[in-house]
C-alpha cells in the first residue's frame, strides 16, 4: 500500500508527498504552532498561512462569527511578511522532513513575482501555493502564475476561488502551475441587527463541503493536473469523497481547530480504507 502522491508530476524535480493530507492555508500557522498537539511529521505537507511580501496588520476585531457548522472569518490578511518568515521560520523548516509549501498572497503579478524572486536560495521551502485574489480574471490569473513561474524553479500550485475554480483552472495551468488547489473559501456576510455592524469574511467549516465537492468535480473533469481539494473536510469519509472524485490530495482547515488530531486521523483512515479494499495506490 502506497500513500505517496506526486503533486508536481510535470516538474523537473517533482513534489512527492508521503501522503495526501495537509493543512489548508491559514489554519495551521507556519507549522510550528501545533507542535506538541499534532504529529506534524505524519502529514503529507505543511501549507503555511498566506504570506505577503511585506507585513500586513490585518483588520480590527471582530474577525470571527461562529455559525452553525462553521464560521465566518476575516483576519484582513494579517501576516508577519516574507522577510520575517524567511528569517525566523524557514531555518526551522529546513531541519524538518515534512515538505513546506509557502502560501503566497498578493494583489497582482508583480507582487507575487517579487515573493518568488526572494525565495531563490532559501532552504526549507519545497513549493509555493498562490492564493489568487477573489476578483481575478482568467488572463490575470494566468499572468500571476506565469510571473511566479518566471522567477522560481520551485513547484507552484494555484489556489482558486471556489466559485470560479472551473473558469480559472486552464489559465493557471497554461501559466505554469503544477497543480491546482480547489479552493479558496467563498465569501459570506453577517450583520448585527442592532448595531448593523457587518462582517464580510470567508465561510469555513462543514457547510462548505458540498460547494467544494461540486467545484472539485468540475475542475477534475476539465483539466489534466493534480487537484488538491479544500473545503469542509473534517473526517476520513469527507476525504475519501474528494479522493473518489479524482482529487489527488486534500487539505484540512478549521477542523484542526476543533480537533487537532483530525489530519493524522484522516491519514490513518485512508490507509485502513485502502488496506481493507486491497487498493495499492491513492490515485
Amino acid at each position, binding site marked *: 500500500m502506497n500513500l505517496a502522491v506526486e503533486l508536481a508530476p510535470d516538474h523537473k524535480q517533482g513534489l512527492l508527498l508521503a501522503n495526501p493530507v495537509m493543512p489548508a492555508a491559514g489554519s495551521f500557522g507556519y507549522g510550528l504552532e501545533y507542535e506538541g498537539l499534532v504529529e506534524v511529521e505524519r502529514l503529507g505537507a505543511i501549507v503555511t*498561512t498566506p504570506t505577503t511580501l511585506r507585513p500586513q496588520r490585518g483588520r480590527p476585531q471582530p474577525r*470571527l462569527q461562529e455559525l452553525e457548522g462553521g464560521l465566518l472569518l476575516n483576519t484582513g490578511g494579517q501576516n508577519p511578511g516574507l522577510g520575517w518568515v524567511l528569517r525566523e521560520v524557514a531555518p526551522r523548516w529546513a531541519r524538518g522532513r515534512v515538505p513546506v509549501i509557502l502560501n503566497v498572497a498578493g494583489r497582482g503579478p508583480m507582487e507575487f513575482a517579487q515573493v518568488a524572486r526572494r525565495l531563490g536560495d532559501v532552504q526549507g521551502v519545497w513549493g509555493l501555493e498562490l492564493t489568487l485574489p477573489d476578483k481575478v480574471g482568467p488572463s490575470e490569473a494566468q499572468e500571476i502564475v506565469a510571473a511566479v513561474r518566471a522567477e522560481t524553479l520551485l513547484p507552484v500550485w494555484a489556489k482558486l476561488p471556489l466559485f470560479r475554480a472551473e473558469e480559472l483552472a486552464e489559465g493557471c495551468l497554461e501559466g505554469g502551475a503544477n497543480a491546482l488547489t480547489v479552493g479558496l473559501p467563498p465569501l459570506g456576510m453577517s450583520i448585527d441587527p442592532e448595531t448593523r455592524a457587518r462582517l464580510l469574511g470567508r465561510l469555513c467549516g462543514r457547510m462548505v463541503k458540498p460547494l467544494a465537492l461540486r467545484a472539485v468535480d468540475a475542475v477534475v473533469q476539465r483539466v489534466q493536473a493534480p487537484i488538491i481539494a479544500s473545503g469542509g473536510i473534517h473526517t476520513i469519509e469527507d476525504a475519501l469523497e474528494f479522493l473518489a472524485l479524482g482529487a489527488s490530495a486534500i487539505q484540512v482547515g*478549521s477542523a484542526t481547530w476543533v480537533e487537532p488530531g483530525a489530519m493524522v486521523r484522516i491519514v490513518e483512515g485512508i490507509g485502513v480504507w485502502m488496506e481493507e479494499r486491497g487498493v495499492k495506490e491513492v490515485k
Partner: protein
Amino acid sequence: MQQFEASVLARVTLRPTLIHLTFDTSTLATPPAPGQFFMARCEGVYLRRPLFACRIEPGRVAALLPLGQDLGLTWLAARQVGEAVDLIGPLGRGFALEGPGGNLLLVGCGSGIASLLPLAEEALAGGWAVALLAAFERPDLAVPTALLPPAVEYQMALGGAALEELELLLCDALPWADRICATGGENLYPRLAAAIRESRLGLRPGLARVLVEVPMGCGVGACGVCAVETHRGLRQACHHGPVFDLAELAI
C-alpha cells in the same frame, strides 16, 4: 500544552445560573498559571470554548460556568460527575507576580472575574495583601464571596451603573496598590487606564496587567482570529496573551 480528557470530579450549583465544575487534571504535565486557559470541546457549537480556572490545586482545576449565555458553556456546565471533557491546555501567558509581596489590587467585571481568583490565592501565599473590586450588572452574575479567600478585601458594585461606581472605588484604591491585575474587557480597560494615569501620574509598564477576552479560533496562535491592538503592533491573545500589560494595549 497537551490535549487530554478531564473527568468532572465535582459539580456544584452555586445559583440557578452559575455552576462550579471541578476537573481532574492529574494527567497534566504542567498545571496552569492564573490567567492561562484551556480550549474545551463542547457539543452543539462548532468551535472550542476558552475555559479559565477559578481555582487551581494539585491535580485539579475548577471553573465557573454561567448558564444561558453561550450554548457551548451551557453544555459544559451540564456535565455531571464522572463525565469527561476534551481539553487542550494550558494555553497562553497568564498573570505573573514578580518581586516581593506588596499590595495587589484585583479589578474586574462580569463572569470573567473568576480567572482572578487563583491569582488571589497565589498572591496571598506569596505574602501579598489583596483587594478585589468588582462590577456586575445583576446580583445573580456576581462571584459568590464564598469562593474568595477570607483574607481578600472584596468590594462589589452592582446594577446598570456598576462600572461608574467601580471607577469611584478605583479612585480610593489605586494609591494603595503596588500592582494591579484586571479582567473585564473593552468597557473596563480604558476607564482603568485613565484612572491610573490620574491617580499615579502616568501608566508605567509593569504596574497593571489585564486579561483580554476576545473570540478565539484555534487557541494556539495559528489562525489569527484573536488579534489584540498593542503599541507594538497586533498580538494574538491566545499566544502572546491573554494577559497583557495595560500600558502596552492600544486603547
